[in-house]
């Protein structure tokens, strides 16, 4: 690629943490600007160009009719669209509310619900074609770099989807499930964090979403055996990725 690829960064229903993770690339931020041309990023720029983009990074899920329209517009103007982070992939934490009747949620927060136009929170893939996903809440900044470098080299990025347990082993950690009977989501969760939580003395909560082909049912059985109630098992699966087909069943239909 001779010309610098044009990049757009967009926010939908989410917390801006994924965008912030990009700003946390302090060490290489200036070098990064040498290889990509960020033409749309409202959180950082006042003058934004309305596409087209070689790559668009979408942060956040889709939760209003207006957002559905917007994401479709962006899709039309993007060569590659990346679901950047769990919200854009499957709604993340806010998707917990999808199990509550919408009116009930609205009534808890607003007195006049007639001006609120929210729907269930969905990943962007529900409405548009997604070319790549960067998992995590937030995705690690290095995975973003890996993705950018790979697209410049025109290859598939190396983003392995194996479980956190693999990274846990790389770090010589004791397994929390087998040694302390702590309900760890590691065995069904996609790696990418470097086994952050188990290495810091706490269980993986699943913030990178499901790994490739996880055996969620078996992990739910294990949780039951170590004493978790059905509701707690559901809470665990209905957190970052309850809407994914991989976890849907264990999250409670």
């Amino acid at each position, binding site marked *: 690629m001779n010309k610098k690829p044009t990049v757009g960064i967009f926010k939908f229903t989410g*917390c801006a943490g994924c965008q912030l993770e990009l700003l946390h690339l302090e060490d290489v931020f200036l070098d990064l600007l040498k290889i990509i041309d960020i033409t749309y990023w*409202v*959180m950082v720029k006042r003058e934004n160009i309305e596409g087209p983009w070689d790559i668009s990074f979408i942060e956040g899920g889709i939760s209003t009719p207006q957002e559905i329209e917007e994401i479709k517009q962006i899709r039309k103007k993007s060569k590659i669209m990346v679901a950047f982070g769990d919200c854009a992939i499957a709604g993340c934490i806010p998707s917990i509310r999808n199990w509550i009747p919408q009116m009930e949620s609205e009534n808890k927060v607003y007195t006049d619900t007639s001006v609120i136009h929210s729907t269930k929170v969905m990943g962007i893939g529900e409405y548009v074609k997604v070319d790549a996903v960067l998992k995590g809440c937030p995705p690690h900044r290095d995975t973003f770099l890996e993705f950018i470098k790979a697209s410049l080299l025109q290859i598939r990025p190396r983003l392995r989807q194996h479980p956190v347990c693999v990274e846990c082993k790389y770090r010589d950690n004791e397994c929390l499930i087998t040694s302390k009977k702590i309900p760890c989501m590691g065995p069904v969760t996609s790696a990418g964090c470097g086994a952050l939580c188990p290495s810091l003395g706490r269980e993986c909560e699943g913030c990178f979403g499901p790994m490739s082909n996880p055996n969620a049912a078996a992990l739910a059985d294990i949780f039951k055996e170590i004493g978790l109630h059905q509701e707690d098992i559901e809470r665990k699966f209905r957190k970052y990725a309850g809407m994914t087909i991989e976890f849907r069943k264990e999250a409670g239909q």
Partner: protein
Amino acid sequence: MTEKTITYKNSKQDTKTIEVNYIARVEGRGALNISVTKDGKVQDLRFRIYEPPRFFEAFLVGRRYTEMMELTSRICGICPVAHQITALRAVENAIGLEPSEQTTDLRKLLALSAHIQSHVLSMYFLSLPDLLGYESFIAMAKDHLDVVKRALRLKKLGNDITDIVGGRAVHPVTAVVGRFTAIPSKNKFQAIRKELVNAKKDALDTVELFSNVEIPQFVRKCEHIAISDPKSYAINNGRFRSNEGLIIHESEYRDYISEKQAPYSTALHSHVKTRDSFMVGPLPRVNLNFEQLSADAKEAAKQSGVKFPNFNPFVSHLARAIEVLHSIDESIDIIDRLPLKEEGNHEIVCRAGFGAAITEAPRGSLYHSYQLDNNGIVRKADLVPPTAHNANNIEKDMHDLIGIISDATIEEIKFKCEMLVRAYDPCISCSTH
């Protein structure tokens, strides 16, 4: 995603209509809709927050108390630490748990690191381009590489500390109910201590930069609120206090502060009951707690030539710079007194109860409260982030600001209004949550 447009509506009264459909360089999605009559009267003014709400207060109900820190962290990617600590303290207040001194200190360190990171982001990345005349931080790099590099260094310092203490810069993981799951090694702390000491020059330069940049001369006296503590510069703990005599315990918050819905905004508007809107944030903090600032921060503030207490919202930038300096000083103090003991995992006995907490997020006072049942399940959650506190006050400031610049061009008014919004450094996702 809509373009910024300015429309001239030459209606009968020659009204100036100012519209910003997506305010740039702030977190989240907000808009401005303003119309000003020919004789300079503001006819209509809306700081329209259209960020879709995520209904945290609804779906937190039914979740475990231990999850509050993790879930509410996802309200905001810029100030996850503030949400985590507030959630933890509210939950601990509900179950009657007092964390150890070390935990309290580590939390403060975590909060200070978040302040450094967030303030640097706000000052240098989001607002400085306005003050120096660039469209963005990126564009600024061409002519002010040293300033940009300094900003990146300072921001990295904040991140690095959050990373080391919390495990991760965005949505950290180690702070849990009653303790930290892992305590960083002495070596790591010594390494950050060194970085902190080295960063002081950058922080002083920052104070100098923001005392010298030109800001709009605009003053509007209003109620300023922050938590206060006689012993230290209050961030995680203190009484909720204002310059107009409010002084309450965090558990009494709802007796004094209420919210109401504005039909055009998904963020609720706060006000002091029987009184008016108010301001929270770095400026109220510096105004109210000036005496608790570190010696060097106080000195730098005095040297700046700007008088405190100060009621020009644009002085918030300088207040942030002063706080960054203070945060560095206090972080060093904390590191020097930390015993760094591993703390065991105590069995926590859960019981039904109500707990509330107010802390100072980088953008201002943040309130969480939870009602727990006997099994530790949340039955009611009430969250008020700083930008919900400020939303109404921003409009009031803007009203008066336009009043004094109404003969300027629409472009100019628009720009000044945006600048005002950015001076508040609103976190819109937080405000709607």
